[in-house]
């Protein structure tokens, strides 16, 4: 995973709440067995509407999504994060994220910054007043900046550290391998085992 410190990209105002992962990427696109190449699948159903925000020239190359609350609800599909990432998004700002989505995003280097609902509205207004304007995401200071407007965002400190350092989760866990082995040794015999198979 690449290190993330500061990034500046085109802001996209998505004036919708409860954007579930079925909207971010419909199930029909989940049949691929690769981890990349999902850019065409992002908001696939909504993109059929010529008025949809990503179909407008100013936002076509969006990189910082500003969405309403409860973003990423529903299905656990990590494909939602891959689709956002493949399209070009580096960060999503929202007043509230669904837990699984936020966890998945952190694993893939997509920043999820929690901002207040009033700051969401301020960002939307500022972007719409100047379509195509860039937002700077500063992960060190935890601030999103658009011109004179500076908005603080919250992000889990551990995730932030991992993103700043570009660290891989499995590698981190394997430092505790001795503890895992010790735990396994004291598990009761009756705990479930899938093998050998019984019917």
């Amino acid at each position: 995973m690449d290190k993330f410190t500061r990034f500046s990209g085109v802001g996209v105002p998505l004036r919708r709440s409860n954007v579930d992962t079925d909207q971010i990427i419909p199930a029909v696109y989940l049949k691929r067995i690769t981890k990349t190449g999902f850019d065409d699948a992002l908001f696939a159903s909504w993109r059929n509407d010529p008025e949809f925000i990503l179909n407008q020239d100013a936002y076509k190359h969006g990189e910082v999504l500003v969405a309403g609350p409860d973003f990423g609800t529903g299905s656990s599909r990590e494909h939602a994060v891959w689709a956002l990432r493949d399209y070009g998004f580096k960060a999503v700002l929202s007043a509230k994220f669904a837990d699984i989505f936020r966890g998945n995003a952190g694993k893939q280097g997509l920043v999820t910054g929690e901002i207040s609902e009033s700051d969401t509205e301020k960002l939307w207004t500022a972007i719409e007043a100047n379509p195509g304007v860039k937002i700077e995401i500063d992960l060190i200071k935890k601030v999103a900046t658009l011109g004179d407007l500076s908005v603080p965002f919250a992000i889990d400190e551990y995730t932030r550290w991992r993103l700043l350092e570009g660290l891989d989760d499995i590698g981190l866990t394997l430092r505790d391998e001795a503890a895992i082995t010790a735990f396994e040794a004291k598990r009761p015999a009756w705990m479930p085992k899938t093998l050998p198979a019984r019917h």
Partner: protein
Amino acid sequence: MTNQPLTLAEKVWNDHLVAKGENGAPDLLFIDLHLIHEVTSPQAFDGLRLAGRSIRRPDLTIATEDHNTPTVDIDKPIADPTSRTQIEALRHNAKEFGIRIHSLGDVEQGIVHVVGPQLGLTMPGITVVCGDSHTSTHGAFGALAIGIGTSEVEHVLATQTLPLKPFKTMAINVEGTLRKGVTAKDIILAVIAKIGTGGGQGYVLEYRGSAIRSLSMEARMTICNMSIEAGARAGMVAPDEITFEYLKGRAHAPQGKDWEDAVEYWKSLPTDDGATFDAEVFLDANILDPFVTWGTNPGQGVSLNDVVPAPSSFADPNENAAAQRALEYMDLVPGTKMKDIKVDTVFLGSCTNSRIEDLRAAAAIINGKKKSDHVRMLVVPGSARVRLQAEQEGLDQIFKDFGAEWRFAGCSMCLGMNPDQLAPGERAASTSNRNFEGRQGKGARTHLVSPLVAAATAIRGTLSAPSDLEEN
């Protein structure tokens, strides 16, 4: 510290702690059971290969095919090449890494959340993960069961652990006795309508109270299944005699002395008297009606006796805007009686409501009745074993005589990944868990209902409760 009263969730958490996180790092928890299906796993196996890693505990891992699988002609090759590729990838990965797999045609094949419990692999006090948000289903046994993403699937395959931040706890107290025709599905839809789709965010929910205690395991699974629809990471019910009775004798349930040891431990799991929850919610089971959704998220639900709400009835501007958008998508007019809504399709199935008890309940309603002419009904058992059992009980004949389609096991019409989909604009009463835009097919409209409401609706052609049949 040792005598501090604890909740069920805290006990399971503590008993799985491999390493305590320091300086804001998450705790590392051991995972007892890892369920795998074809959609969220191929990229995880690829990741292992790229990093040259192996699977730590194939003996705690099990795979089945469910999301992509067709529910007819299962003896023929899967027609959709992309679906076939994904299924073949799972079979290949299972073989390469030595994982037990139940493929299409196998008696243990089925929806991953139906298969785990029916094999007796899902037990009280264990940790369960799966790359599927409805993993919360297994919490019905008093397990801590959470849905994970593909990166986490890879992490569990490699390490049999998961780094997790401690959750907050929320008690959902449901007291009283359900009236006739009201079920577990109505309880959970009412809970979600009450706390909202984000209301459980960051929490593990524990369903408690006399109404929960009296429910069967199947019904408890229905409730825990939809915890994710309230935004929660997991839902749990404390294990009791009903749990033990369900488990005893199942293929992978402990036997002999192991069974006694296990039960002794399981009896220590329920939340201690005096333990505190971070939040509490109360619901009166006595006054609950059958519940249905009118909108495009599972929180947009009302009593079946109610009307389609007006967006202006929501003070919150986001909810108001969401309601307007939902009504437009659903093609509904505020003030319309829910019972006047005509449906095209009835779907009985999904990890929420496809167990034997669900099929029995629906069959009892339709037995000897005639299906509404304009309604298509699909009945999709949750697993091949459920299908077999239903056939032994003659339920398949009841459904067939009624005019319903009797299908093979799988996720089917719950999500638009296999051939079972609604046409654009088509409206369904569905026992599944999500009414999102396009969930059951592009442009499709979904009303979430219980199996009883599904059955009554198939007879009358409009959203109906079993009690509406008696009045005729």
